[in-house]
């Protein structure tokens, strides 16, 4: 009887300890269960989407939408804490992910607008720069042309015999050579004296290498117009070919037969007709046009 009563007393003493141990075990078990609760894929995606939106330009360019996204994500997180396995958690997480994506897209749109404005500004500046560059190049080319013309003229004027044959006209620098000095009557073969003169001219024209040169063959009005036109052309070509032989670039020089169409004097006197029989070498003012 004594033994029985002492056992009962011991059991009574142990009871509170056992109940405490049970409570601790229950807590541990609950904790273990909570820690292994899988996070739904939708919530993982929502967290990722929000973090991506925050890391991008969204914080600066779409803060209001980002705030909405955060509120949606918080709702989903709370739902997950309360009901981890509930379908509502997945729905709210899905919505939260979309809100974060919207924030990201709005930020992307705003960024694109800014980039376009910036690029258009740069485009305007680059165009101005190109215009300035072109203007400067044009001015430089004009200056070079004027210098070249001046050098050519100076070189031609130094040749005593051509001093009065060189004129500056609107169409360029014009060297006029008398027909009877260059060719025999009705012929288009250069005379030896003409070759010497053309040698000097070719040397002077070396200053005008970038300019276009037109050789014009002119005749008087005696005889048929067709024959004169043909003679004018053949004479101009003979001079141009000779100048090419002497180093003037072929793509810069051309021959034109003017015939009797551009007289400088009347054809009713011998003196006038002699003046009209001529070859003009025109060093054009525009370097690019023929």
């Amino acid at each position, binding site marked *: 009887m004594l033994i029985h009563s002492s056992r009962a007393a011991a059991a009574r003493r142990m009871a509170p300890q056992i109940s405490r141990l049970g409570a601790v075990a229950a807590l541990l078990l609950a904790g273990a269960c909570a820690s292994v609760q899988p996070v739904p894929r939708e919530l993982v995606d929502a967290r990722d989407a929000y973090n991506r939106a925050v890391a991008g330009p969204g914080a600066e360019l779409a803060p209001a939408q980002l705030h909405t996204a955060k509120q949606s994500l918080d709702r989903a997180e709370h739902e997950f804490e309360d009901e981890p396995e509930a379908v509502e958690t997945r729905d709210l997480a899905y919505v939260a992910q979309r*809100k974060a994506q919207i924030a990201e897209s709005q930020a992307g749109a705003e960024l694109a607008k800014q980039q376009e404005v910036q690029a258009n500004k740069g485009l305007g500046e680059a165009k101005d720069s190109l215009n300035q560059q072109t203007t400067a190049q044009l001015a430089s080319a004009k200056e070079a042309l004027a210098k070249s013309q001046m050098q050519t003229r100076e070189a031609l004027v130094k040749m005593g015999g051509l001093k009065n044959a060189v004129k500056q006209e609107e169409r360029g620098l014009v060297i006029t050579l008398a027909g009877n000095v260059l060719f025999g009557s009705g012929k288009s073969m250069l005379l030896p004296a003409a070759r010497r003169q053309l040698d000097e001219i070719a040397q002077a024209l070396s200053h005008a290498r970038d300019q276009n040169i037109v050789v014009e063959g002119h005749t008087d009005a005696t005889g048929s117009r067709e024959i004169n036109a043909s003679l004018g052309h053949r004479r101009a070509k003979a001079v141009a070919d000779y100048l090419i032989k002497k180093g003037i670039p072929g793509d810069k020089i051309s021959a034109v037969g003017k015939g009797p169409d551009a007289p400088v004097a009347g054809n009713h006197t011998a003196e006038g007709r002699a003046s009209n029989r001529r070859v003009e070498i025109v060093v054009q003012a525009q370097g690019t046009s023929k």
Partner: protein
Amino acid sequence: MKMFSLRISGICAAAGALCLAACATSAMPQERLIASQSSIRAAEEVGAEKVPAAALHLQLAREQIEQAKKFMQQGANERADLVLQRASSDAELALALAREAPLRAQAQQAIDKLQALKTKVAQ
């Protein structure tokens, strides 16, 4: 006896309140449905169909609206309400993506033009 009667009436009041709350949350989400449909129309108007990413979300939104309607027919209004929230969020995303796409294209065009001109200036 009087005490017992008071307790009963309290319990009834609480039960009534709970019932009202339950009825309120399970009402048919008509407004949500209208809002979702309106979001879809807004996305369609800005050309979401022509932007592949936007078109996908537009399609998802439409499918979810149909799904929500079925839930509503079955009386599962709370579930329908959440599915409609999903539909709205997809439609809104479709709208955002459809607005973003042309802006990005315009920006890229301007950037390309600038690059080409810079190359020309450098030459």
